[in-house]
């Protein structure tokens, strides 16, 4: 069965075909059902039911009913006339997200990166580190210049922005090359399954 489905998906490389279409339908259907059940038990039941009807000895936490009511409002979408109620839970999730992510980005993407970019441009007795630091600071500087939206990229300023793009291209090239290895490992694992475990051709 594993091999049948594996080959069905691989056949997509040749072209779209009924075998792949069948596998796709199976995959989508099964996974949709799978995730619904998983979420039902591990999130809905665990967060709502278990807090309101907890195991003996634990206090009931009715605060979670608010979540339940918001969830119910979501379902009101199905009734056209009062469907607009569902915007309340939408607003709640989107607003909360905006707040939490804003902080997350400010910290890990913003301040931590700025801090690690502030480097001494001269490390005595270590040419390697000196050159490395200079390239890092200049590269980050030029890259940031590229992201300015308020100014046309012309003249000297344009040249700096251009250098910024060059750094971005190096970044993309390097991460592309770096990922090739991990992706190939996965394919090697799959091929080892087909030719070793299944066909027994690899000793």
């Amino acid at each position, binding site marked *: *069965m*594993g091999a049948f*489905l*594996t080959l069905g*998906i691989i056949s997509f490389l040749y072209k779209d075909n009924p075998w792949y279409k069948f596998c796709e*339908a*199976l*995959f989508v*259907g*099964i996974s*949709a*059902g*799978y995730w*619904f*059940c998983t979420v*039902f*038990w591990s*999130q*809905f039941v665990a967060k*709502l039911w278990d807090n309101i009807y907890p195991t003996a000895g634990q206090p009931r936490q009715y605060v979670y009913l*608010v*979540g339940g009511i918001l969830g*119910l409002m*979501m*379902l009101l979408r199905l009734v056209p006339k009062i469907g607009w109620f569902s*915007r*309340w839970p*939408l607003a*709640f*999730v*989107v607003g*909360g997200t*905006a*707040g*939490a*992510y*804003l*902080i997350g*980005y400010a910290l890990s993407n*913003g301040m931590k990166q700025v801090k690690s970019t502030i480097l001494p441009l001269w490390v005595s007795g270590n040419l390697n580190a000196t050159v490395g630091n200079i*390239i890092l*600071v*200049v590269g980050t500087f030029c*890259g*940031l210049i590229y992201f300015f939206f308020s100014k046309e990229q012309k003249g000297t300023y344009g040249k700096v922005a251009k250098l910024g*793009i*060059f*750094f971005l*291209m*190096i970044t993309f*090239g*390097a991460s*592309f*090359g770096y990922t090739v*290895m991990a*992706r*190939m490992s*996965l*394919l090697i*694992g799959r091929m080892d399954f087909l030719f070793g475990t299944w066909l027994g051709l690899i000793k």
Partner: protein
Amino acid sequence: MRKEVPLIITFLAGAFFIADYFIPHTGFSDLAAKINGWAIIVLAASYILGVLNILRINYGRVAKREKDWILKLILVLCMFFMLGAGIFGGITEGTLFDWFFVNTFTPMQATMFALLAFYIASAAFRAFRVRTVQAALLAITAVLVMIGRVPIGETIWKSFPDFTEWIMNVPQLAGKRAILIGAALGAIATGLKVITGLERTYMGQD
């Protein structure tokens, strides 16, 4: 009620989670955890909408006998089968639900993931033409890092792996930092616009 309430909720929820970061008060953190729980419940409730959406879209196609309607029928039947198995039989190890997961889901998932190896090759072939300086930089760094990471790179030049490490740690990192810092500002601005209600295209206004 239709317009204002959602905006107020957005503002309050957003401001609350920003404040959460700065307030170490244990009572407040507990409250934040509970409010997070609400969000999880709301997200879980939306799965019901998701299943109904799948049904609505596929029902139409099956009923009208559109192209590939049999496949859509298989899709819906598979979904119902898993729903039944999972809700009535439970989802723990050893159940029918778990067996189907391990035997159909896992190999297909692994294979889809492995297809990437082929696509990465064809994408590289098509895109890495040295048309401009930018394209050249992209292609050359990709090739250097790619070769430097495997044993054959070491056979070609002894310090190849070290050089690859250097590329990753210096010029690669520089570009990456610029993107990260820029994205941080973009995310902060978007978040702020959403919280203050300046940006509300995503929410109907009628």
